[in-house]
């Protein structure tokens, strides 16, 4: 099996348009979740982490100008702009050619261009744009990818599944390089749905805290450029060492009560990576801050004998970015590996989960070699992925 290295990456969130901007915000402790009063998104005030629209359009014009030769003038949706800027930034520092037949594009999203169901967009964009494969075609065509993209839509584990899928096709030798990108926008569709579940916290979310009352929604996009050839950037090489998914087979909207199934995904990922619990130095948890998710996750971590390992959730900074979450959080987690630095789990004050966790409460340096990223979602799905620094 071929090793799979992370060559470069990107995060677009409320905290910036590059990985560096986002990591700097984590270092400073800046939180991107705010009270938003926008009738286009929800009839009342709601906590959201939003990408700045003016900045988005400026950045997009810059990217468009660079690619203008290949692309006739066309309108792009908010999400398409996310993907295009993120891939552009992800590819900037590394010469992986989209047109190379050995390069694969994997896209993760839960809802794609779902805002196009709203009347205001119906005249601007063709109904076809609602189809996730059409979204994929638009992104692939923009950069001239020669292979049709693989599109993953698997609820909140989509991003991790996308990285895992790309890694597997690289490990098996089917491709040499992969661009993995995941994104979702904040939409009335999704906000109203989570509100109907009474799952949205009235203040910025507080993962693993005693007083957590729900999640905060966010929007964003993340990109990882993977290759079977290590880059020669001089920076430490980080590999995708193992990954797995499982299903709770229990409930479509509530997580397992025992955490055994997420524990199963962690066990399978560690087995593939040939890593023992003792070797895992850090966990980037799903940590949505809903009462049940965090409870389940604490049990899964205990079940996997990882209770002593430092753990954080990035959702306290930029909220739950759905189809982007698995990728943006993996990028942040691998930045921790690269920089030997752990970020405080924003929103956490008082331990509030049944199984003890070692939640990171202050930013701190730490010698790191292996980190675990977990995710769980509707439909009872769980995913675990391990990153290892060589």
């Amino acid at each position: 099996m071929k090793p799979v290295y992370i060559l470069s990456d990107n995060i677009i969130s409320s905290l910036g348009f590059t990985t560096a901007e986002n990591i700097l915000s984590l270092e400073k402790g800046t939180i991107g979740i705010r009270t938003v009063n926008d009738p286009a998104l929800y009839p009342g005030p709601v906590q959201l982490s939003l990408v700045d629209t003016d900045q988005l359009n400026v950045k997009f014009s810059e990217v468009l100008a660079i690619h203008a030769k290949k692309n006739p003038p066309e309108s792009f949706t908010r999400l398409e702009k996310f993907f295009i800027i993120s891939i552009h930034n992800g590819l900037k520092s590394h010469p992986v050619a989209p047109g190379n037949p050995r390069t694969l594009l994997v896209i993760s999203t839960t809802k794609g261009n779902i805002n196009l169901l709203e009347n205001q967009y119906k005249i601007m964009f063709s109904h076809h744009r609602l189809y996730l494969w059409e979204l994929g075609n638009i992104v692939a065509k923009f950069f001239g990818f020669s292979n049709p993209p693989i599109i993953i839509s698997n609820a909140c584990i989509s991003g991790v599944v996308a990285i895992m899928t790309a890694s597997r096709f690289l490990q098996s030798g089917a491709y040499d390089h992969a661009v993995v990108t995941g994104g979702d926008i904040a939409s009335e569709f999704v906000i109203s749905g989570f509100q109907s579940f009474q799952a949205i916290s009235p203040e910025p979310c507080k993962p693993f805290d005693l007083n957590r009352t729900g999640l905060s929604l966010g929007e964003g996009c993340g990109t990882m450029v993977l290759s079977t050839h290590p880059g020669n950037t001089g920076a430490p090489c980080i590999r995708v060492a193992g990954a797995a998914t499982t299903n709770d087979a229990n409930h479509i909207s509530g997580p397992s009560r025992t955490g055994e199934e997420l524990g199963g995904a962690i066990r399978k990922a560690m087995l593939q990576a040939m890593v023992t619990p003792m070797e895992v130095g850090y966990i980037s948890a799903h940590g949505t801050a809903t009462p049940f998710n965090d409870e389940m996750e604490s049990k899964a971590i205990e079940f996997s004998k990882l209770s002593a390992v430092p753990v954080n959730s990035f959702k306290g900074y930029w909220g739950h970015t759905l189809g982007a979450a698995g990728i943006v959080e993996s990028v942040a987690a691998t930045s921790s590996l690269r920089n030997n630095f752990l970020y405080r789990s924003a929103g956490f004050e008082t331990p509030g989960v049944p199984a003890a966790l070692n939640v990171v409460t202050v930013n701190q340096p730490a010698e790191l070699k292996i980190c675990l990223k977990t995710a769980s979602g509707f439909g009872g799905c769980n995913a675990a992925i391990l990153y290892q620094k060589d």
Partner: protein
Amino acid sequence: MADATQQSFIRKIKMDRIITSYSHLHDNKVIVNGRLIFYQENILKFADFVKTVFKQEQIVYPRFYKMDAISKLGFLAVELVLKEQTIDGYDRDTVGVVLCNSSSSLETDIAHNDTIKDRTAYFPSPSVFVYTLPNIVIGEVCIKNKIKGENAFLISESFNGRLLCDYVDELFNSKRVDACLCGWVEVLGNNCNALMVLVENQDDEKVNKSPGFNPVIFNEENLNFIMKHN
């Protein structure tokens, strides 16, 4: 010489992966392992089609009536496959489910959107919203059959046997699954098309050795053949 041996060895592994049971539901027809088990001359609405087949097959599962269209269709397709070939011999965390379609959950997305487009009648409902993700059908299938292994939902413009084979082959090659349900589950309006296959390793002792169907090799050609001609 060594190369030739290795190549034939690799080919043998590929040959050994078989479809041991399949179902295909489309155009008022239901075909299971080459047999037409349901056909209705008059065009049925989707809801009536799946309900009639559900009743004819005497499946007892009250949860079925709560499901959205894709979940009903995928659930039914899996029940028909597993009626013919049991997966009882497997540890449930070694059984995978990999599904694909074109319109994701668009049918149910429109239903949820209808509950929020009018501010004077704003009634988003969790029981609709939860189905606005395509992988919920995988959750339903896993709940019914206690399947806990690898799961993934992929999106493709049209039926793509190659994508499904590539994805599932990799799961078998890397020993992540011993058996896998794999298929296409598409519903939009009254048009539906579901193709579900059970993939197993021929030489695995856990395979039920008296299936009601003469297994065929699991590959792109056979998936496309079933889709076109059955």
